[in-house]
């Protein structure tokens, strides 16, 4: 085998407050993809940035060996590092909308790498930019090069970002969560592009929080937790026969399809022919569905599909142009503001970003107190009920006087669930409730939601872009595209044997672990 493009042994990176990386060793060979998987704060991104000398002034970096293309980089000066960045090592961040300079055309961004390293003569730069855009699969490259990031679609932007990283032909390409902000079909395209690079001999270091995303691409997987590599092996070893409990926990946290049989409750929400337009755009176009007590209806779709608008229509925060919503057989749309307000306690909501849904001045106690007041709980028993609610969502009274800002992401979402439960609603609308959470926390919150439903019989309208998550919790599924329902039915039916072409495309794009891996996981 040829020499490694990058080799690191016993890497330690510490910041004044914390030692972020402790004893990490890794090597990436040409044509190989190594993935570092871990949750936020695991030290995976810091490790990647060390390979570019970009850990910041505050950091102290030590390593047994740190070599890039065989050259010892441990004592590189800033100037030496600059000659490495972009030329020997390329770096791709997540979300090109913010990772590309919004005030410059993408062509200029790509040209910047070429100019900095004088990779090609000045007059050839425009030509080279077009070649690069073509190489990463951007159609009409001449026109695209003149456009600004906000004028391109998410997929094209991300391709342009990759083009700027590979402009000088670096041997190593580091991709730090390269698909995290993307819709699932676009994610699949970008992963295919990265796979092509790998086949062409590019060494690839992939950083991700999602084992399923790296499963297809990675030859080796390193699992990191709190700055330490807890597991290191070939992809099939790590995914198929994990040894460390943390790896097992991560694998277990990947949502599995539910196998429960739908229980037949009475209809609590009936939406009939909902239409909502904003200006010329029809956000929701003739959407109908029923939701029964104790059941979960999953609403899936990519960004712009109308999921969130549907949720807001159901919540009565928007009025539909046509169509209606009934709650418990009673009309809900078109009611007077007063009358609607009286019924609101029956339908509660959990948001993706719980923090912004809390008044920043309020403590957990006041948040719950207000929700209980709305639910008609007498003042005397509210505190007792608040503590009960906290226990129901797996917290205790120690958080009562804290403000949400001081809580962790998972704790915040639990408080949000407690608040939603406080007025004893019939339905909870869950709008992407776990997509901002780490994988293991995500699994805990999903399990909590499922458990609460079994206990309380509450119905969920579950909005998500994540098919695995939806499959895990839903009895029925509604697939939306451009505001229209393309398919609906029992979750198992729609998500395993879809009839609509779009659903099939969506499912094909979902990164998943191999079957044998799933089997191994089930066995463990």
């Amino acid at each position, binding site marked *: 085998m040829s020499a490694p493009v990058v080799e690191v042994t016993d890497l330690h990176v510490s910041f004044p407050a914390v030692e972020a990386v402790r004893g990490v060793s890794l090597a990436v060979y040409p044509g190989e993809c190594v993935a570092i998987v871990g949750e936020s704060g695991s030290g995976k991104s810091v490790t990647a940035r060390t390979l570019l000398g970009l850990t910041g002034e505050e950091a102290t970096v030590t390593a047994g060996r740190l070599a890039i293309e065989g050259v010892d980089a441990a004592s590189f000066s800033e100037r030496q590092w600059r000659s490495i960045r972009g030329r020997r090592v390329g770096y791709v961040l997540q979300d090109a909308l913010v990772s590309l300079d919004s005030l410059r055309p993408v062509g200029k961004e790509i040209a910047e790498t070429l100019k900095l390293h004088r990779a090609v003569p000045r007059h050839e730069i425009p030509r080279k930019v077009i070649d690069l855009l073509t190489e990463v699969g951007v159609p009409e490259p001449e026109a695209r090069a003149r456009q600004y990031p906000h004028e391109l679609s998410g997929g094209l932007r991300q391709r342009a970002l990759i083009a700027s990283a590979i402009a000088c032909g670096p041997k190593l390409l580091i991709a730090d969560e390269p698909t995290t902000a993307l819709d699932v079909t676009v994610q699949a395209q970008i992963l295919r592009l990265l796979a092509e690079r790998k086949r062409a001999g590019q060494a690839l270091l992939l950083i991700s929080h999602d084992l399923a995303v790296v499963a297809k691409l990675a030859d080796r997987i390193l699992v990191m937790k709190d700055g330490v590599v807890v597991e290191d092996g070939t992809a099939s070893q790590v995914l198929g026969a994990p040894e460390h409990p943390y790896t097992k926990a991560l694998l277990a946290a990947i949502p599995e399809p539910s196998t429960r049989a739908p229980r037949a409750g009475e209809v609590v929400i009936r939406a009939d022919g909902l239409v909502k337009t904003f200006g010329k755009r029809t956000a929701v176009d003739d959407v109908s569905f029923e939701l029964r007590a104790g059941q979960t209806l999953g609403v899936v779709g990519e960004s712009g599909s109308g999921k969130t608008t549907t949720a807001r229509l159901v*919540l009565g*925060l928007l009025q539909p142009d046509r169509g209606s919503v009934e709650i418990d057989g009673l009309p809900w749309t078109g009611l007077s*503001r007063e009358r609607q*307000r*009286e*019924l*609101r*306690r029956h*339908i*509660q*909501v959990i*948001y993706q*970003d719980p923090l*912004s*849904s*809390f*008044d*920043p*001045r309020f403590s957990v106690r006041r948040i719950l107190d*207000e*929700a209980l007041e*709305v639910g008609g709980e007498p003042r005397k028993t509210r505190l007792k009920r608040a503590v009960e609610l906290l226990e129901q969502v797996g917290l205790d009274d120690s958080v009562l006087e804290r403000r949400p800002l001081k809580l962790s992401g998972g704790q915040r979402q639990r408080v949000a669930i407690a*608040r939603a439960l406080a*007025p004893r609603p019939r339905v909870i609308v869950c709008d992407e409730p776990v997509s901002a959470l780490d994988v293991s926390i995500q699994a805990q919150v999903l399990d909590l939601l499922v458990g609460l439903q079994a206990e309380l019989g509450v119905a969920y309208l579950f909005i998500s872009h994540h098919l695995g998550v939806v499959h895990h919790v839903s009895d029925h599924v509604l697939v939306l595209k451009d505001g229209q329902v393309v398919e609906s039915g029992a979750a198992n039916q729609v998500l395993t044997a879809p009839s609509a072409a779009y659903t099939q495309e969506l499912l094909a794009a979902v990164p998943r672990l191999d079957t044998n891996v799933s089997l191994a996981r089930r066995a463990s």
Partner: protein
Amino acid sequence: MRVRAGFTLASVVLALITLAALAPGLLTGSTPDAADALAALQGPSADHWLGTDANGRDLFTRIVYGAAPSLLAGLGATALAVVVGTALGLLAALGGRAVDEIVMRLVEIVLSLPTLLLALLVITVTGPGTVNVIFAIALYTAPSYARLVRAQTMVIRKAGFVEAATSLGLSRGRIITRHVLPNAFEPLVVLATIEVGTALVAAASLSYLGLGPQPPAPEWGAMLSAGRDYFSVAWWIAIFPGVAITLTVLSITVVGRHLQRRIS
């Protein structure tokens, strides 16, 4: 650590200035109008810590007695502006589209005129004097508060927690009083604290231009104005009243920013 020290120092200075404003007799045994022609234009000495002016009045005593009118102008103008500005801002934010348009156009017209110039126009009409200065400054600062209150209220009305409160089933009135207003007022209070300093400087500037309290009132700006002809021979007349103004404003700003950081 350094921030804390600055805050403590600023608080002490403010406490002293407040004491000077409330009970000047505790800090100096003399009176501000006690002239001594024989001691005119003397530099700082054991008898006259900060020297004397052209009439032989003790500069330290006059600065101590000057605290009250100077602070009063800053506080008065800010208080008046906050009250008027808040009322206008809330009216614009909550009163519907037409009201909003009218109020905000008015605000923009007033804001389009340079601050000091508007004050000069007001004083041309009303004539000089402390009350008129306060009124003039409040007139041109009120629109900024109106704008802030309106913007804050609008932003907060669209905030996630207001939508959450709506979904919960709270009434509109209760959402406004319980969630919107308290969150809108927090930055207002901080801004107002800092702006007391700005208003104080504006008042002192107008006094310096001879449009505020008239001599022999011991107001800081007016003292500088009265000493104009002697700057070349008696530097202390030019220095110490200005130091008093700057220290006061600096302390107010430091305390205000400290509050700002604590909130965010």
